[in-house]
């Protein structure tokens, strides 16, 4: 009897202490992908320091742009493993923070959030990336500011317009700082241009868009459908010119 009680008590204590536990080396990773990298990969190493296996119920990322994978579905006591988060950079810029939520069958901590922070180097910072004139508006030049990103040295930039209907003029305003004046030849037609901006010693291309748009439409009036444009090709105007609506917005 005494032995049975002792065994029962010891088993109970053993069960209490035998909790699965995943210990993470780190749950937040900061990455600095190089210029031109398509992906940034974060590695999250863990070890099962508990006495029972840990089973991964799910591993999912906060964004479709990040793929998260676990090396194994189950981690035995003492075993190590890793979760990999692959972030597709695409055309993203600046600081990107994505999370991966890991759900396990641990009693104490069923959900762990892994954070991936990617600082994407931006060689040129362009503002604004879109300039427009309303149809019939005076074709005054509008300015796009270009300046070198942090940790980049840019001595010269080249700006080309995909359409001869828009003229561009580049002026240096400071070290690594430029002013691009864009001017349409006329604003009576619905014209568009993709401006390609490149720094002299880098193959990477940046874009801005210049367009002549229709004037603000009255609520309820049918919108004019225009043909979509693609980088490098001017958009073809598909509708006849309309007089600007009264009380049109100024840019």
């Amino acid at each position: 009897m005494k032995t049975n009680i002792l065994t029962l008590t010891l088993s109970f204590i053993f069960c209490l202490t035998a909790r699965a536990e995943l210990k993470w080396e780190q749950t937040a990773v900061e990455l600095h992908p190089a210029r031109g990298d398509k992906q940034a990969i974060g590695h999250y190493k863990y070890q099962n320091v508990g006495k029972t296996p840990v089973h991964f119920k799910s591993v999912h990322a906060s964004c479709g742009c990040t793929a998260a994978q676990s090396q194994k579905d189950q981690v035995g006591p003492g075993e190590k493993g890793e979760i990999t988060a692959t972030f597709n950079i695409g055309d993203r810029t600046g600081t990107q923070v994505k999370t991966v939520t890991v759900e396990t069958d641990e009693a104490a901590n069923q959900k762990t959030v892994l954070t991936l922070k990617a600082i994407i180097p931006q060689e040129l910072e362009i503002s604004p990336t879109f300039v427009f004139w309303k149809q019939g508006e005076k074709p005054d030049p509008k300015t796009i500011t270009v300046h070198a990103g942090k940790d980049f040295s840019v001595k010269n930039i080249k700006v080309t317009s995909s359409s001869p209907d828009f003229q561009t003029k580049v002026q240096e305003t400071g070290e690594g700082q430029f002013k691009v004046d864009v001017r349409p030849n006329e604003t009576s037609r619905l014209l568009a241009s993709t401006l390609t901006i490149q720094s002299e010693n880098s193959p990477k291309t940046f874009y801005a868009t210049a367009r002549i748009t229709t004037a603000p439409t009255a609520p309820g009036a049918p919108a004019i459908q225009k043909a979509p444009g693609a980088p490098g090709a001017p958009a073809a105007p598909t509708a006849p010119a309309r007089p600007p609506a009264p009380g049109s917005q100024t840019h």
Partner: protein
Amino acid sequence: MKFSLPCQALILAGLSLLPGVGQAIYFRDKISWQSPIPPSEMVSVDQAREWGDNTIWIDARPDDQFARDHVPGAILLNEDRWNELLPQFLAVWSPGKKIVVYCSAQSCDLAREVAERLRKEAQLTDVFVLEGGWEAWVKKNRS
């Protein structure tokens, strides 16, 4: 007049509430207690519908999700192919249009990020994020 230690702590904690509440009121348009997107930048499905043809719907989800289903007439604009897709959107935009960006649900960040980029980089105004995202639109229009 001498206050006991708990009294002193309570008074300080209470005094700190005042400017905190003041700031919460001052910033009420810049931050929502329900979600990370401020109320002035959110729009419900019903509100967006009221704008009618003056609305441009933008789908911020990955290409495959857009291809499967999307708001009729919506334009795909995600950060995976931003440079390639942006001109297509700009081709249909004109001043006065309301831009409503959505992603899969309230909890996804893609719409907020695309909306932020349109405001900051293209310097467009009237850019909103759809409250509840694609899920909310489906619920209102297809159930």
